[in-house]
Structures are given as structure tokens and as C-alpha cells.
């Protein structure tokens, strides 16, 4: 205990020589009890001497950094070209413009009515699909419930993920069915057999 006090005291002595007002600022003494005189440092700072930096140079540095940040932020806002929207210049030529088609008022009415009819049709389809999916899910949930009631072991086996099923691949329907034993014709090719 006394050695600590002596150490702290010596530090205070050194600092007081360097900067008379500094020593007081470095060590503020707090007395925890009147019986024991303890020196508890409540603030600390660098013991090395600080260089006198010109505030103007510092300001200039900060300004430069702020400008850099601004420039980067602006770049972020710039929108990139979407490659898919790029149209070949040859397609934008004047000669390619189609002669405009005048659509009569009745035709326009007919087209608008057809669009509405289509929207109605697609909505009905969607509602039917949703109902079918919901019925399928309900049916499966009921089956699993009944299975669990019968046997916990079988239920746990049923609920396992089938790793062979995923990824699932299926070939979709075509306009016409496949021709049995179809012999496709040769396509265009470059014959590279070496001539002797």
C-alpha cells in the first residue's frame, strides 16, 4: 500500500515539474475514508507531449475527406444501364418504322371489353387454383393427423423429407404429342473430316 502511494506520489512530482497546472488535472484525489489517505486517479491522459497542430491544416484535411465522401455518395445514386433494355441501333432506324395502323372506335371498344373479359377469366382461374391447393393441403393435414393418432412412429417416418424427390424435374406439355420412333433430320453442320 505504501509503495503504491510512494509511486503515485513520485509520478505527481515528475508531472508537476513539467507542467505545473497539469499535475493537478492529471490526478484528482478522492478520499474513500478519513482513516486512509488514498490517491485514486480518476482521469488519465497521454504522458507523451502533444505536437502543436495547426488547426487550419486539420480543417483542410477534414474538408478533403468530406468532399471524397460526397463524391462517392453521388456515384451510388447514379443508375446503371440495364443491359436487357439495350436495343440494337439498326432496329432504331427510320426506315424500320411500321406504317401506323388506324384503329376505329368500335375496334378500340371491342379490345377494351376483351381485356376486361380476360381479367375476369384469369381471376376465376386463380380463385379455382387457390381453392384446389387449399383442399389438397387440408386433405394432407387430415391424413397426417389421423396417422399420428394411429402410430407416432409411422407419423415420424411419413414426415421425413425425401432427399431423392428434390430437385424435381418434369418435362411440360407440348402443342402436339411426341411421334413414336421419330427420325429427326440432320441439321446444318460443317464437315471437318480431313481430305486425303
Amino acid at each position, binding site marked *: 500500500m505504501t509503495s503504491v502511494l510512494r509511486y503515485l506520489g513520485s509520478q505527481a512530482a515528475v508531472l508537476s515539474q513539467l507542467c505545473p497546472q497539469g499535475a493537478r488535472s492529471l490526478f484528482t484525489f478522492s478520499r474513500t475514508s478519513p482513516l486512509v489517505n488514498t490517491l485514486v486517479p480518476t482521469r488519465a491522459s497521454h504522458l507523451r507531449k502533444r505536437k502543436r497542430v495547426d488547426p487550419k491544416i486539420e480543417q483542410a484535411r477534414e474538408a478533403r475527406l468530406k468532399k471524397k465522401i460526397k463524391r462517392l455518395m453521388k456515384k451510388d445514386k447514379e443508375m446503371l444501364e440495364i443491359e436487357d433494355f439495350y436495343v440494337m441501333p439498326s432496329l432504331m432506324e427510320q426506315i424500320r418504322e411500321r406504317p401506323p395502323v388506324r384503329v376505329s372506335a368500335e375496334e378500340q371498344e371491342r379490345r377494351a371489353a376483351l381485356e376486361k373479359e380476360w381479367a375476369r377469366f384469369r381471376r376465376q382461374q386463380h380463385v379455382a387454383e387457390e381453392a384446389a391447393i387449399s383442399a389438397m393441403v387440408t386433405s394432407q393435414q387430415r391424413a397426417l393427423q389421423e*396417422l399420428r393418432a394411429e402410430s407416432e412412429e409411422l407419423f415420424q417416418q411419413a414426415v421425413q423429407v425425401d432427399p431423392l424427390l428434390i430437385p424435381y424435374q418434369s418435362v411440360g406439355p407440348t402443342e402436339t404429342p411426341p411421334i413414336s420412333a421419330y427420325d429427326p433430320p440432320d441439321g446444318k453442320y460443317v464437315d471437318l473430316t480431313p481430305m486425303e
Partner: protein
Amino acid sequence: MAAPLVRNAFLMSTNRLAKPALIAASHAHKVPGLLQNAVAAQMRCCVCGIKTGPAESEENSSQAEQSPWTLMSAVCMVRRPLIMAELSDVERRYKAHLEQLHLETSVLSDHELQLIEEKVKLKQRRSRGYDDDDEDGSLLLAADKEDLAADKFQEFQPADRLTEADMKNDRSSQLRKLGVPLYLLVKQKLGDKAVWVMPQGSRQEGETLRQTAERILLTCCGTHLRTTFYGNAPCGFYKYKYPRTMRSENNVGAKVFFFKAELTGGDIECDSEGVEEFAWVTPEEMKEYLPQKYLDSVLPFATCL
């Protein structure tokens, strides 16, 4: 089962910390009066949180032995559509409408430009009287190209959308009605009667229900069918009681679990033992074969979508 009465959590924790050994050895806490009679059920002690009563697995296995229902698996085999369904009237009209719009808002293609050029040139030649010094004449006119393409298109004969089976209305063929999904029904002997059902059979010891389904398919339809089962879980459920003559104490009826599978190739080889005949039918046609209650269980997953 009554929810465990959670006392002061602090009390519970101190109890556990204080005497874990005692609790493990013999459960000393007295169960409150109401629950004392419920010995068979698994209860949680409201003081220390330990589970009392017979273990879960024991209970289940005893239940399985005593269950009066025969567990059966059935296979809902679907033949997916091979061709696009017939377009409805709205769809056909909208398709034409879209094609017209796309044409009107497009630019002229190279072929169309060539056609226009040649028209103009022909006019000029006509006016000049068909001078035969045609310097810029290309080898192949656009009109000729169109004719050639049309001829080539005629050479290819696609298969008919309406097959032989459609003409004969042969329900045993899987190539009938190619635009809609078809489901397999078999006339199976269950008990002493032959009934139209989806192929079903009872579960044997040590099998999962899906394995049962796969085995049933092999026995009913032969080994040449190639299928993909849609996972391990059943998609439907149907319960029926045996006729009174066949019923007994531990054999009341059967619980059928349906498994959906897709046909990827091959033909059915009918085993005359269990299966008399089979049919590939649409959900609407199923009404002619299946009783209403069975249909109610099957239609949710055997849809026309």
C-alpha cells in the same frame, strides 16, 4: 390433460438445485387430489416439473397392438398431360388479340423490308417494260423464301392431338385425353367382392406406409411401370368398416392412406390374381366408378389441375 400448474419459478428452481438425486430416485411429491386418478395419462408434477406415468413409447406400442383398424396404403397414380389443353373461347380470342397488338407495336423485320424493296423494284421494272439488266437482283426473292419455308413446314407431319384411344374411348389406355391428367383405378378383390378403387393393400410388419404403397403398385400393376412418388407423407385418408359378417373385436375395418405418385413411363401388366381390370380416368369420370364417400376423400387431391 390438465396443464401443469406453474408455481413460483424461484421455488421450482431451488427445489431442482437442492435435491436432484431424491427426485430421480423416487418421485416424492404428492399429486393434487383431482389428478390422482389419472394414472394412465402422462402428467407433469406441478412442484418439480418431472413427468410421471407410463412412458410414451410403451403407450403407443400397446395401442398399435390393440388397434382394431387395419392400416392400408393406396396409390393415387397420375399420368400428367402430354399436350396443352384445348384453349377455351376467351383464350383463343385473347391470343389473337395479343398477336395483333404485338404486330402493330413492332418494327419491320429484315424479311419485311426486303419484301417492300422488291415490290418497289417490280413496279419500276414494270414501268420500264421489263428490261432484263437486273444488276442488283438477289438470288432469292423474299417471296421465294416464304414459299420454300411453307413447303418445308408441310413436310413435317406432327402427331395427332386426338389419339386412337380417344376415337375408341378405350379407358384402359393411358394415351387417351392427352390434355388432362388421368388417374389410375383398378378393380380389386377386397374380401369377397371386386370393387373399383385406387390400388390398395395392407401394411406388413416393419414397413413404412410409403414402402407399402410401392409394394402394392408392383403387385397390382407389374414391374414395367416407372413412377415418382411425391414424398413420404400421405395426401389423403379414408376409413371404412368391414361388413358385419367380417367384423370382429380386433378387426373392425381399415384406414387407408393415399400416396400420390406420377407416371414417368412404362405400361401396366395386369396381374389377374388381385386385379381384374384397370382404367385411366379423369376426375369427372371417376363418379361412374367410385362410391360417393370414397370420392369425397379422393377428389381433393385427384384434381383436374
